């Protein structure tokens, strides 16, 4: 076990080094501009899966967390001039708090009621921010990036490396949750919450924990977005597309393993970026919807399930 854990961290360090290497090797900033969006979706999908995939609570409020992340960052930047990492940390704290509140909702609400309540939360928070003039209200707010610090030569490249680091944190957390008693408890909740409670699984504590971790990651993913766009408004920060994407990427990738959302986010994210550039941004929402339905109907285990099946067939074919 410890060998595997070391393996993961060595791999993570290699990825981070590779990411930094890329910022030195590639001149074209657009690659990082597009890449950052995909990294953002990997974090969102991974975070969503901690609650939605492991515990079976469909959180449709990813956009609420993302938006709160964006606006926490803006508030900290405008009020205190906080640097990016502090903004992200602040957003993570806010996200954990908001996640805790969401977790309390699960006390009374299950299934579709929980999902609708999270949509409600999104719209209510968006309305609050719209009416909060200090951070720009409905018209939005411009943000001036501070000068980039060494060892990076452009802000986008720095954001890209930070994005990679955040992905590593998210995946490490998701992987830890999945492998530990927390993940086993969450799966018990997903299969039968009453039975889990009766056999002594601390369901409320586990759900609160899962909600807080998931919320903190989602908000942290939203925080750099203000600096990335140098602008924020409520419509795009609380855009429901984040909710759909996080859910769709997890379900398409496969929800039972931490690699599922990562795979789903990469496949869908790359497709979407390609479609947005070549055809139109409407079309990528359409592709998302169609793929979501196809996978939910035809491949309930997601891409991972398909791969596993294909692998098993290959192995059997080779044996006989």
């Amino acid at each position, binding site marked *: 076990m410890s060998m595997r854990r070391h393996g993961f961290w060595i791999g993570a360090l290699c990825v981070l080094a590779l990411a930094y290497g890329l910022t030195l090797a590639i001149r074209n900033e657009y690659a990082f501009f597009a890449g950052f969006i995909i990294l953002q979706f990997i974090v969102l999908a991974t975070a969503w899966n901690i609650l*939605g995939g492991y515990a*079976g609570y*469909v959180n*449709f409020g990813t956009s609420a967390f993302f938006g709160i992340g964006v606006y926490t960052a803006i508030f900290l930047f405008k009020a205190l001039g906080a640097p990016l990492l502090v903004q992200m940390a602040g957003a993570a704290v806010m996200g954990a708090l908001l996640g805790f509140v969401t977790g309390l909702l699960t006390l*009374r*609400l299950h*299934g*579709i*009621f929980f*999902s*609708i*309540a999270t*949509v*409600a*939360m999104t*719209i*209510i928070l*968006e*309305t*609050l921010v*719209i*009416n909060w003039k200090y951070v720009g209200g*409905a018209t939005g707010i411009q943000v001036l990036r501070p000068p980039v610090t060494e060892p990076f030569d452009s802000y986008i490249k720095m954001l890209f490396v930070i994005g990679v680091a955040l992905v590593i944190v998210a995946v490490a957390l998701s992987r830890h949750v999945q492998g530990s008693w927390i993940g086993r408890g969450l799966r018990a909740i997903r299969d039968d919450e009453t039975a889990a409670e009766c056999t002594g699984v601390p369901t409320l504590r586990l759900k609160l924990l899962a909600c807080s971790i998931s919320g903190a990651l989602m908000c942290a993913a939203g925080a750099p977005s203000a600096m990335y766009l140098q602008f924020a408004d409520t419509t795009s920060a609380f855009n*429901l597309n984040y909710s*759909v994407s996080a*859910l*769709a990427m997890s*379900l398409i990738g496969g*929800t039972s393993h931490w690699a599922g959302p990562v795979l789903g986010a990469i496949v869908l994210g790359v497709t979407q970026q390609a479609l947005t550039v070549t055809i139109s941004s*409407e*079309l990528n*929402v*359409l592709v*998302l*919807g*169609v793929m*979501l*339905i196809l996978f*939910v*109907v035809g491949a*309930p285990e997601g891409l991972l399930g398909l791969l596993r099946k294909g692998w098993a067939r290959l192995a059997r074919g080779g044996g006989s």
Partner: protein
Amino acid sequence: MFSFELLLDAVVLGVMLGCFYAAVSIGLSVSFGLLDVPHVAHPAFLVLGAYGAYALNQAGWDPIVAGIVLTPLFYVLGVVAYRVYFETFEKRGSDAGVRGLAFFFGVTFIVEVGIIMVFGVDQRTVQAGYIGKAIDIGDVRIPMRMIAAFGGALALTLALTAYFSLTFSGRAIRAVAQDEIALRLMGANPLKVKQLAFGIATAVVAVAGALLIIVGPVEPTTHRVYIGRTFCVVVLAGLGSMHGTLVAGIVLGVVESIVLTLYGASWAPAISFAMLLVVLAIRPQGMFGR
């Protein structure tokens, strides 16, 4: 700032708005309330109905007539949607919660993008003789479009209430909601009954969509606000209660209208969602729950 006339205005408009909310929610009251289908695509169908009415209105039709003409089409749409949902989720009985929800969210986004691709992202309105005029009753000035929507909404709600209590198939639908196994033991086919019910619930949405575009301009993303309004009304009513839907709609309409008058329009979208959260927290079975 605060005057009695203003409040009276708000309440009268709120009641009319409320009947309209009941009309747009009553289909959901059947599909989600009676059949337990997590039909989050309902508001998207509603906007689809509104755009259908818009398209026929461009050809010179009255929007309400257009809505009625579209009902058979929506009936078929509903039957197909339910059939797919049943075959893939209810029949297998596996994990219908997460994936069923995801399925309808997927449908929602396909409908939204479909509308954007055909009609574009601009706001659309309909033309008719009665739109744009207003009448005065005492001190209260009421726009004709609200009265048209009010009348249509009332007729729709009463017709459905009558259908569910007076006709044989209407009672069968209520029976399948109460006890599916008993229905099966009586020799009836629950699938057929539910399919009929979902078809009717969707057909009604065509007319409700026409009312939606009479009341105000519609854009492809309008359905997002109506997720809150329709689910708020259905949950507040108590799942599957038809007269409850009317009462709950009026409650939401009046509250929204008063808040709008006192605090301004920017708070409006949050009201239905906040009410929904409060109801879910305090009385999840609603006012007339089964």
